[in-house]
């Protein structure tokens, strides 16, 4: 299998894939007093009417409440289907935490950063196990099996026969990560990368973890951000600054970029009218150290 060693990014900075549902805000943040929301270049206010139903008095977008989020339809067509229902919320005996992280970068770069797990050993000191593994023993060789799906792509990372991570990208902006998916209590992280403007992204992070018997099985919003998120923000914002400064420079790629390049294809096709996986549904494997 060969990888392009040098290529330019496939897209210009965009405002996301049109005609999709995006998260406007966590539902718990919305009260009778409208709150401002930026979404795909639109500025709207989201509040609740007297019956508690979510409304957007300004902005002109359709908003609905589904699960722990308020969703808005962004596009030139009327809303299609229902707002997404997150499968992670159906895990029995789990508790859920929500956080909002803002990044001054285009959502493509934030999304790529979330999909790419070969950066963990370098960007995340003290917050990711791979950093400690790298310091102690070096990076282990793993097999990443990736394939396109009708709604995006998925990547399964295994160490021998042991499935460690399962990443799934779902159009337009969702990344689902399941850590130790075959264990009795897998940890699931669902991150939506909402393009607020061309230069700002809002990450809506939902973490599902097994609840201890004495813990409440509810969904809570935490206004603070974690160190692991701040580490990502620093690197992606620096990347965006330098991409703006060197817009014509090419990129060099390596084997670990294979699924990131596939995601670029998916996003580009989706932005240009529709993603059709075609023959990309065939799984491919790549050996990488992460």
């Amino acid at each position: 299998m060969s990888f392009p060693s040098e290529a330019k990014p496939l897209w210009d900075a965009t405002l996301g894939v049109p005609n999709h549902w995006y998260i406007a805000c966590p539902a718990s943040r919305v009260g009778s007093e409208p709150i401002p929301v930026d979404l795909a270049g639109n500025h709207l206010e989201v509040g609740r009417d007297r019956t508690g139903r979510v409304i957007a008095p300004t902005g002109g977008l359709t908003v609905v409440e589904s699960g722990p989020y308020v969703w808005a339809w962004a596009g030139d067509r009327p809303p299609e289907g229902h707002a997404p229902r997150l499968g992670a919320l159906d895990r029995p005996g789990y508790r859920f935490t929500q956080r909002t992280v803002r990044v001054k970068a285009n959502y493509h770069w934030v999304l790529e950063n979330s999909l790419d797990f070969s950066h963990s050993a370098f960007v995340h000191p003290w917050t990711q196990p791979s950093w400690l593994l790298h310091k102690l023993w070096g990076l282990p060789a793993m097999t990443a099996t990736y394939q396109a799906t009708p709604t995006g792509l998925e990547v399964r990372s295994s160490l021998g026969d042991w499935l460690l991570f399962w990443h799934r990208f779902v159009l337009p902006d969702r990344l689902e990560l399941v850590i130790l998916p075959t264990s009795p209590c897998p940890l699931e992280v669902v991150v939506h990368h909402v393009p607020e403007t061309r230069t700002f992204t809002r990450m809506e992070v939902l973490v599902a973890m097994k609840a201890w018997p004495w813990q409440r099985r509810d969904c809570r919003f935490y206004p603070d951000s974690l160190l692991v998120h701040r580490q990502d923000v620093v690197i992606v914002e620096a990347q965006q600054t330098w991409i703006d400064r060197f817009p014509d420079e090419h990129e060099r790629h390596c084997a670990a970029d294979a699924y990131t390049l596939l995601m670029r294809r998916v996003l580009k096709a989706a932005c240009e009218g529709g993603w059709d996986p075609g023959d990309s549904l065939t799984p491919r494997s790549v050996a990488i150290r992460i």
Partner: protein
Amino acid sequence: MPQDCWIIALPSRSLPRRKPVAVEVDGVPLVLFRDAKGRPQALLDRCPHRSVPLSMGWVRGDRVICRYHGWEFEGDGMLRKIPSDVEPTVPKKCATPYPVHEAAGSIWVWPGTGEPGDLPAEVLTAPRSWRAAVGGLLARFRFRSN
């Protein structure tokens, strides 16, 4: 357009070992670092992989290491290691090096694209810094008094 001339990037004492330093010389963003022998090296401050500033990383031996994915570069722009690759990395020149020289207590960089000339003779023979100059005078005084 960067000039074809030697320009002081920063004082020698401001370039420590094992820590890359970001400077902008005549509009060119550079990362300066010292190799294992203490010699200064200069590269364009951009990792060719994902465009992250190399100055955010760190230095090990002769190499500056990108903080994003750990790609390792030497002062001549050669990519020496991609940590995520299972196979050994084939050295490849993909970072942009700049001529650099340390003289008279300063780090000099040639930001232009032309062939770098020699540093002026008075620069090469000047004392490294005021400390070196004072130290040299004292040494001469001691030498004479003996």
